[in-house]
């Protein structure tokens, strides 16, 4: 059992938890993830490590399916059954020069750890964080404190630039020499945004989030196509060359259990509603 030491809703439907997990916290590097299992009947889901302090790991997630809803309902002081990690290869941190970190929605959660590591390696770091609307935007202050420059975009113009993160990246790519780019967000956002840097062949990484089970290379559930090769995101990734990833295939595989995920969530809501009525 692992204790959740803090739990907060940091934007609409987006939650931040801190988990006491020394084996993860003392070994985690930027870009890695954990596998969490909430309780004895729970599934194993991968979530990015957003930050570490001492023996604690920060995880940020949006409540979308049953497991993330359940996780959002856990109060500080309560336990989760399992947290395994850190998993996956760390981000390729080196001295590139000027780096741009693009985050979309809850994908922004991955950026501070990478940004910090890139700063330590003497890079100039520009952050672009975007959300549908201002009330879904996370980690603005934290990113501002780490990055040399920070741009904010919202799809509806309720904060910062009215448009997509890709628009800002395009502008930067046209006017400056960029040496490395990270794009982390919803798969469709990564697919579209990665096109911006393709022509100039700017080294661009995306962090993939396919369906996983064990997270250690033993099942192949997370297999992706990268440059016509099959890769396991859990051990070969999760970060890959953005210009080589087959995003359409990834999106297809992410939809494999849509119907079952819906059933699971409905049951969860029914259960939580009845128990509330009983109280």
């Amino acid at each position, binding site marked *: 059992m692992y204790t959740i030491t803090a739990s907060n809703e940091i934007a609409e439907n987006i939650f931040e938890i801190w988990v006491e997990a020394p084996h993860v916290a003392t070994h985690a590097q930027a870009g890695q993830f954990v596998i969490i299992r909430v309780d004895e009947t729970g599934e194993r889901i991968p979530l990015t490590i957003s930050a570490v302090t001492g023996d604690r790991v920060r995880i940020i997630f949006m409540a979308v399916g049953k497991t993330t809803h359940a996780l959002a309902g856990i109060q500080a002081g309560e336990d989760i059954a399992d947290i395994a990690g850190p998993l996956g290869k760390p981000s390729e941190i080196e001295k590139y020069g000027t780096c741009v970190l693009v985050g979309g929605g809850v994908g922004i959660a991955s950026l501070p750890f990478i940004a910090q590591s890139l700063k330590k390696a003497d890079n100039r770091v520009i952050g672009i964080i975007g959300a549908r609307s201002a009330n879904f935007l996370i980690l603005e202050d934290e990113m501002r404190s780490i990055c040399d420059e920070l741009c904010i975009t919202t799809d509806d113009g309720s904060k910062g630039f009215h448009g997509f993160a890709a628009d800002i990246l395009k502008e930067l790519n046209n006017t400056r020499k960029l040496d490395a780019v990270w794009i982390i967000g919803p798969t469709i956002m990564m697919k579209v945004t990665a096109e911006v840097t393709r022509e100039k062949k700017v080294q661009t990484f995306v962090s993939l989030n396919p369906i996983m089970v064990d997270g250690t290379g033993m099942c192949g559930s997370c297999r992706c196509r990268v440059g016509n090769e099959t890769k396991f995101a859990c051990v070969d990734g999760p970060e890959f060359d953005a210009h080589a990833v087959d995003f359409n295939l990834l999106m297809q595989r992410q*939809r494999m*259990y849509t119907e079952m995920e819906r059933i*699971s969530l409905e049951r969860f809501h029914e259960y939580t509603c009845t128990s509330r009525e009983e109280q």
Partner: protein
Amino acid sequence: MAVRPADERVRDFSEVDTGFSREEAIAEAERCLQCKKPLCIDGCPVGIDIPAFIALIAEGDICAAAGIIQQSNMLPAICGRVCPQETQCEERCILGNKESPVRIGQLERYVADFARKEGVLPPERGKNTGKQVAVVGSGPAGITAAAELAAAGHDVTIFESLHKPGGVLTYGIPAFRLPKDIVDYEINRVLSRGVRLLCNHVVGRSITVQELLAYDAVLLGTGAGLPYFMNLPGEHLNGVYSANEFLTRINLMHADRFPLYDTPVIRGSRVVVAGAGNVAMDAARAARRLGGRVTLVYRRREKDMPARAAEIAHAREEGITFVTCANPVEISGETVVTGVSCVKMNMCEADESGRPSAVPIPDTQFVIDADIFIQAIGQGPNPLLLSLFDSISRGKAGNVIADADGKTSLPRVFAAGDVTTGSATVIEAMGAAKKAAKAICRMLQD
């Protein structure tokens, strides 16, 4: 001894073989000739004193029989069920020449099941030596080594990457062949001897190789968990599984009980399984229990199938269709699997494995309709840890090279089980782990 009827057992995941009654066990034990030079023991990778425990069953002293077995084997209820006795102890039984060999496996199982219900105490832990040993992986090799090392008084820590111990016993072998409460019981008995188990610890990630090498000795028992894929067109379609994934979802995550358990698995109505080893049989029979019509495709002939004869027979009884001398070449479908194209195979001269090499016959392609395709064509050593242990000598297949004592090219690092051999049997891993543990004890004495 009873095997549940096929039409009943395909509706659940409860055990197929219900084992001996006391009377049957005693009657079977009385058949043993108590040979002066028993050959059966030589056939046992962990060297159980088989005639001795059988004699005690014949006398009706089952607890004493359990005591004999646990001197050599801490996982007897597991081994009684999953060992291929027909190629080991029972194959050497002299009675097999004239009639049928003594059913040693069933007897071992009977004794272990009896001992579990009676609560026979595990052997005492040895006097503490102050030596620390790290065991990586809690499958058959890791658990066996931990038991031996703890018995010798060493301080043992097992690192397990999953949330539950047992390795292949937990994620791989289905409950209808190996009930999970038995796995839990026998592993807990080993842990109760003061062995420390750390789940969710991925060696190379949650603990570095350097941290691991700070132990007085290290035993690698990480198994063969990397699933091989066939690299066919259409392999990324939804509904294509490695047997490892399909079985892990069911055995470890209980997807058969979705939505009571959260992990889903696609319940195929038409399932094709490629391969004919024990894992293929397990996957086929699990898919059958989820309600599918299952076809197993194998490129060689039925007599070449590597699975145990009993598993093949059980699969057939349960309505699995075998298509032999055929090999999948393409998986069809837009986003989900709709069929598996196969080509007929011609049996040619024997290859290195002694089995005939199978060669495709041109223009013989045919399609089997399917919504799930499970590939069970073998597994390689778990890659994650080994990629970080880059200085260890490894063979062509990625397996760790170890000598007869389990010694690897790195000082104080030993390896046992499938990580050294590629996928083999539970009992061979246990035999190798015992030898490696003994070698570690000798090294730590010096």
